[in-house]
C-alpha cells in the first residue's frame, strides 16, 4: 500500500462473518423487494403497492448495511472505504441507474399523453433524429454558441489583467464584476432580455433609436437574436472565467515580469512572451470548464426566445425541453438527449486529450 497517510492497521477484524452476512443480506433484500415490486407492477401478483418507494427504501437499507458491513469485515480498511462509499453509492443510484433506465426509454415510442403507453421500437428514434432538421439545427447552434467562448475568453482575460493592475477600489470592481454570475438566469432573462431590450420602451431600444436604428428589434432576425443570447450568456459567465484567469495571473511570480522589464521588453512583448505562455494551462482549464457549462445552456433561451425565431436560437437542451413540454414525447426526447451525450463525451475527450500537453505542468 502506498497511502499518502501511513497507518499501522490493526489485527484481523473480529466480526468478519457477521459483516459478510449483512452485505449479502442487504443485497438479497434489495433484489427480493425489487422482484416483488416488478411482479406486482406487471400484474402477476397483487400486493397493492402504490409506488416504487419500497424498492427505494430497500436500496437505502442495502446501502447502510453495505457501509456497516465494510467496517465489520475489513476493519481499518473498511473505515477508510467509508469516506468514499456514501458518495459513490449516491452517484451510482442517481446517475448509472437512470442512464440504464433512460437507454430503455430512448428505444421506445412513448408519448405520455397518448393512451397506448410505451412501445419498444429499437433505433427508430435515432433515425428520426437524424432526419429532424430542427434537431440538427440545434446541434449546429451549439457549435456557434461554443465558438462564442473565444470572444468571452478575450474579454475575461482583459478584465483579469485590469483587475491585476495597480488600481484603487479594487474590491469594489471585483464585487461589481462578480455580481452577474450570482444572478439567476431566469431573472436575467427578464431583466435584460425582456425589459431592457424591449423594442418599444426598453432603454437599449431608446439608445438604439438615438444612434440611428429607427425600428430596433433585438429578437426578430435570426442572426441578431442568436447574438443577443450569446451576449446575455456571456454577461453571466464572463466573471467565472475572469476569476479563474485572475487567480492564474496572481500566481505568476512578480520577478519574471521585473526581469523582462530589466531586459528591456515592452509591455506588449512582456505580455506575449512571459504572461501569456505562463497563463496557457489556466486558460485551457478555464475554457474547458466554460465549454462544459455552455453545453448546458438553456434557461435564457427557454425564457427569452423559446427557441425562436424559427429555431435560430435553439440549444439542444431547450429543444428537448419543448419536445417534452409541448408534445410529451418522452421516448424521442430521451433519444435526442442520449445522442447529445455521446457527442459531448466524444468531443470533450478529444479536446482534453488534444490540450493535455499544454495543461500538464512541465
Amino acid at each position, binding site marked *: 500500500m502506498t497511502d499518502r497517510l501511513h497507518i499501522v492497521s490493526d489485527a484481523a477484524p473480529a466480526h468478519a462473518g457477521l459483516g459478510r452476512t449483512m452485505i449479502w443480506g442487504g443485497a438479497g433484500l434489495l433484489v427480493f423487494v425489487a422482484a416483488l415490486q416488478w411482479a406486482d407492477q406487471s400484474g402477476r401478483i397483487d400486493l397493492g403497492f402504490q409506488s416504487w418507494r419500497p424498492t427505494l427504501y430497500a436500496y437505502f437499507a442495502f446501502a447502510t448495511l453495505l457501509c456497516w458491513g465494510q467496517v465489520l469485515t475489513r476493519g481499518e480498511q473498511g473505515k477508510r472505504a467509508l469516506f468514499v462509499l456514501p*458518495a459513490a453509492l449516491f452517484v451510482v443510484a442517481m446517475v448509472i441507474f437512470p442512464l440504464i*433506465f433512460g437507454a430503455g426509454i430512448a428505444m421506445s415510442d412513448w408519448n405520455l399523453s397518448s393512451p397506448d403507453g410505451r412501445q419498444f421500437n429499437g433505433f427508430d428514434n435515432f433515425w428520426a433524429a437524424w432526419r429532424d432538421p430542427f434537431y440538427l439545427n440545434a446541434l449546429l447552434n451549439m457549435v456557434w454558441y461554443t465558438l462564442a467562448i473565444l470572444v468571452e475568453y478575450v474579454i475575461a482575460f482583459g478584465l483579469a489583467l485590469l483587475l491585476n493592475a495597480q488600481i484603487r477600489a479594487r474590491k469594489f470592481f471585483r464585487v461589481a464584476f462578480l455580481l452577474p454570475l450570482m444572478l439567476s438566469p431566469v431573472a436575467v432573462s427578464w431583466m*435584460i432580455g425582456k*425589459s431592457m431590450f424591449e423594442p418599444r420602451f426598453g432603454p437599449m431600444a431608446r439608445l438604439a433609436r438615438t444612434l440611428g436604428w429607427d425600428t430596433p428589434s433585438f429578437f426578430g432576425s435570426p442572426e441578431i437574436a442568436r447574438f443577443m443570447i450569446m451576449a446575455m450568456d456571456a454577461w453571466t459567465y464572463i466573471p467565472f472565467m475572469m476569476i479563474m484567469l485572475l487567480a492564474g495571473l496572481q500566481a505568476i511570480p512578480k520577478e519574471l515580469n521585473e526581469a523582462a522589464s530589466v531586459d528591456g521588453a515592452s509591455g506588449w512583448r512582456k505580455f506575449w512572451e512571459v504572461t501569456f505562455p505562463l497563463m496557457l494551462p489556466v486558460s485551457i482549464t478555464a475554457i474547458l470548464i466554460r465549454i462544459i457549462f455552455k453545453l448546458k445552456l438553456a434557461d435564457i433561451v427557454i425564457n427569452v426566445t423559446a427557441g425562436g425565431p424559427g429555431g435560430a436560437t435553439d440549444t439542444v437542451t431547450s429543444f428537448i425541453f419543448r419536445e417534452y413540454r409541448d408534445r410529451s414525447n418522452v421516448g424521442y426526447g430521451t433519444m435526442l438527449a442520449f445522442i447529445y451525450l455521446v457527442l459531448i463525451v466524444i468531443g470533450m475527450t478529444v479536446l482534453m486529450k488534444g490540450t493535455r500537453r499544454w495543461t500538464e505542468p512541465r
Partner: protein
Amino acid sequence: MTTAETSAQIFRDGEADRTFRPSVWLSRGAIYGALILWAIVCLFPIYWTLTTSFKAAPDVMQGNLIPWVDYAPKQLGWRSLGLTPELLGSESTVRAEFMKRFWNSTIISVSASVIAVVLGSMAAYGLSRFDYRLGPMKNDDIGFFFLSQLILPPVVLALPFLVLYKSLDLLDSRIGLIALYTLTVLPIVIWIMRDQFQSIPTELEEAAMVDGLGVWGAFLTIILPIALPGMVAAFILSLVLTWNEYFFAALLTSTHANTLPVMVASQTGSQGISWWSMAALSWAAILPLIVAGILLERYIIKGMASGAVK
C-alpha cells in the same frame, strides 16, 4: 514613496523620470475608463430592475431612469407583491405565494448544499489520503468518475428522472429536487475540497493518530476545522447554483415544490407590460444572492479559483 522623498535622497529621479509623461496618464485613464465601463455594464441591469420596480405605466413609457429626478417613486410593483410596509400587516395571497416559493427555494438549496458538502468532503478526503481499489478502478479513476458527472448535461437525466420520479411518487416534492441538486453540485464540491485537502500536510493526522485518534477522529477534529474555509467556499458556490437552478425545477415540479425561478419564469409570459411587478419579483428573487455576493465575495472567488492554479 513619501518616506523615500523626505529622507535623505538616496534614490534620485533622473531628469527623464521627473518630466511629465502623458503616456502614463493616458494608460491610467484607459484602465479606469475600461473598469468603469464594465462596472456599468455589470451593474446597470441590477439598477434598472430596482428602479423599474418603483415605476408606474407613464414612467415606463417615457423611459425615465433616475428616481426623484425623472419621476416620483411609486410603490405599485411592491404593492402587487404584497410587500409594502403598510400591506405587511394584512393578508395577501400574492405574498403568501411568494413566501412559499421563497421558502421552498431556501429549504431545497440549503439542504442540497449541506448534503453535497458533507458527502463531497468525505469523498475528497478519502481520495486525497488513501489508495482505493474497486475492480480495475484506482484513485484517479474514482476521482475522474466523480468529476465526469460535470460533463453530463442535465437534459440527459431530465426525462428518465421524470418517469422515475413519477413511479417513485417523488414528482413535485422537495426531496426529489434536493436529491437531484445534490447530484449536480457534488462534482464541484469534490473538485474544490480535493484541492483543499491536498494542501494540508499529512503530518497533522499522523501526529493526531500517535495521540490515539482513529482515522475518523483525526478527520473530524483536526482536518475539518483547517479545511473550513474551503468548505464554506464550496457551500456558497453550491448555494448559488442550486438557488438559480431552473431546468429541473420547471420539469419536475408543478404546484407544491415550485422554486422561485419557476415562479419568476411563469410570470414573464402572463403579465404583459406590468413591468413594475415583474421588476419587483425579479429584484426580490436576486436580492439574497446580491447580498451573498457582496458579503461572501472572498469565499466565492476562493472556490472558483481553486483548481485553476496547480
